[in-house]
C-alpha cells in the first residue's frame, strides 16, 4: 500500500513526484559534473544545422521499430504455437530456429539475411528486409517468454476448461491466453524496448536510421559527442511511451490469483 494511514492519496502522489524530481536533478547533476571534470567544450551549432536530417532519421527508426514490433509479436506467437505443436517436425523446426536465432549475433543475422538470403531471393528493399530480420530476431525471444507464461498456468485450469466443454481453440482463447498475457507482459515490454534500440544495427544494411544519421552529423560538424545526447533522448521518446503503454496494459490485466 502506498502511503501510510494518515496520508491522503494526493499527498502520497505529491511526495512521489517530489522524489522523482529530486532523483532526476541528482542524475543530471552527476552527468554535468562528469562532462565538466573532463572540460568538454560543447559545440551545438553543427547539430542544430542538421536538425532536419536528425528528425528524418528518427522517423525512419520509428517506422522500422513499429513495423518490426508487429512482425515480432505475430512471429513470436506463431513460433510459440509451433514449438508446442503436435507435429514433431514442426516442433523441432521451431525449437531449432529459436535456439539458432537466440545463440547468434544479430549483426551476423542481418548481414547474411540481407546480403545472402534477400539477395538470392532478388529482394532489394533494405528497409523491408531490415524490418523483417529485426522482427524475426526478437520473435525468438518473445516465443520463449510466451511459452514460459503459458506453461506456468496450472494443469487444473486446463482440466477445468475441458470440463466446461471448451475445445482446444476455445481453451486457448478464453482460459489460457488471457491468463498468459498478464504473466508475459513485463518480459515482453523489455524485449520490445530492446528491439527499438537494436534497430541501430540496421545501419550495416545502409539504412539511414537515427544512430547512423547521428554519426554522420557528428563527423560533418567535427564534433565528438554532441549528437549522442539528442540521440539518447530520441530513443527515450519512443521507448518511454512504449513502457507506459505496457504498464497501462499490466494494470488492465491485473487481478489477484
Amino acid at each position, binding site marked *: 500500500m502506498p502511503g501510510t494511514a494518515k496520508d491522503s492519496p494526493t499527498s502520497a502522489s505529491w511526495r512521489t513526484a517530489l522524489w522523482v524530481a529530486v532523483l532526476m536533478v541528482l542524475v543530471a547533476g552527476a552527468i554535468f559534473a562528469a562532462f565538466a571534470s573532463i572540460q568538454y567544450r560543447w559545440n551545438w551549432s553543427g547539430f542544430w544545422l542538421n536538425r532536419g536530417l536528425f528528425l528524418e532519421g528518427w522517423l525512419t527508426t520509428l517506422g522500422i521499430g513499429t513495423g518490426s514490433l508487429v512482425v515480432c509479436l505475430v512471429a513470436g506467437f506463431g513460433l510459440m504455437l509451433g514449438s508446442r505443436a503436435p507435429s514433431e517436425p514442426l516442433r523441432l523446426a521451431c525449437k531449432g530456429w529459436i535456439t539458432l536465432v537466440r545463440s547468434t549475433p544479430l549483426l551476423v543475422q542481418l548481414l547474411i539475411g540481407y546480403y545472402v538470403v534477400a539477395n538470392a531471393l532478388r529482394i532489394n528493399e533494405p528497409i523491408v528486409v531490415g524490418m523483417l530480420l529485426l522482427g524475426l530476431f526478437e520473435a525468438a525471444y518473445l516465443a520463449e517468454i510466451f511459452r514460459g507464461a503459458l506453461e506456468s498456468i496450472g494443469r*487444473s*485450469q486446463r*482440466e*477445468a*476448461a*475441458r*470440463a*466446461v*466443454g*471448451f*475445445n482446444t481453440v*476455445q481453451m486457448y482463447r*478464453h*482460459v489460457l491466453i*488471457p*491468463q498468459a498475457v*498478464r504473466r508475459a507482459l513485463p518480459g515482453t515490454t523489455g524485449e520490445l524496448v530492446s528491439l527499438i534500440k537494436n534497430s541501430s544495427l540496421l545501419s550495416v544494411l545502409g539504412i539511414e536510421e537515427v544512430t547512423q544519421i547521428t554519426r554522420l552529423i557528428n563527423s560533418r560538424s567535427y564534433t565528438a559527442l554532441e549528437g549522442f545526447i539528442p540521440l539518447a533522448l530520441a530513443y527515450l521518446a519512443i521507448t518511454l511511451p512504449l513502457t507506459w503503454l505496457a504498464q497501462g496494459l499490466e494494470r488492465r*490485466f491485473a*487481478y*489477484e*490469483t
Partner: protein
Amino acid sequence: MKLEAQSVVQAFGTQRALDGATFRTETDARVVALLGPSGGGKSTLLRVLGCLLVPQSGRVQMDGEELPHDETGALAARRTNGFVFQGYNLFPHLTALENVALPLRVVHGVAPEQAEARAREMLNRLGLIGHEHKRPAELSGGQQQRAAIARALAPKPRLLLLDEPTSALDPVMTGEVLDVVRELAENGQQIVLATHEVSFAKRVADWVIFLAQGRVQESCVAAEFFESPKTELARQYLEGLARYR
C-alpha cells in the same frame, strides 16, 4: 443411471491409478458415491465416468451406452456433464458471473443476455447474490465452491460429477456446500460424488462404489454397504473415519 465398467485400466507413468476396475450398479441409482482411501482411484474413476479421461483399456457403459474412446466423442459427452473439483478451479481472471456465463455462451451457444440472466439465476440460487462481480480470489473457499457448482449446473447437465468438493474447506463451509449437494440430490439431479464425508454419503447416496488400490472392492446399495461392509478394507476404512466422530 446405470453404470457398468469392465477391467478399466488407467496408468500415469508406472503408477496404475485404476488397475482393472470392474463394477455394475444393479439398481437405477440417482446418487452414486465413490468412497475409499486417498490414492485408491476415486478421482481417476470419476474422470473416466465424466469423459475427462479416456482409459487406456477397458470399457465403461452409462445407461447401456458405451462411453466414447475418441476425443471428439468425449468432448461431446463432457458438454452434457457438469464437473466440480476439489480445488474449485474457477477461472481466476473472470468474475463469478463470467465464470458461469462464458461456457454458456461459448459452448452451449446461449445468447449473451440469456446467458447472463441464467448465470445470475444460478448464483442467486447458490446464495451468491452481491458477489457476481467479484473475482475468485475475493471469495471465500465455500463461496468459490458454490460458484463452481453454479458453473457446472448452469447448462442443466444430465450428470453432475463432484470430486471431493469439500476436502479443501473448513467444517462450516463444508456444511454450506453439502447442503447444496443434498438439495440437488433431493430435487432429482443425477450425481456421482467422490468424497470422504461418509455420514453425508450415507444420507444422500443410493449406491456406493468402494475403491482401494485401483480396484473396485465393493459395489452395492448404499444402506447395505454402511450396514455391513463385506471386505476387510472397507471395514477398516469406515472404522478409521468413525474413530473421531
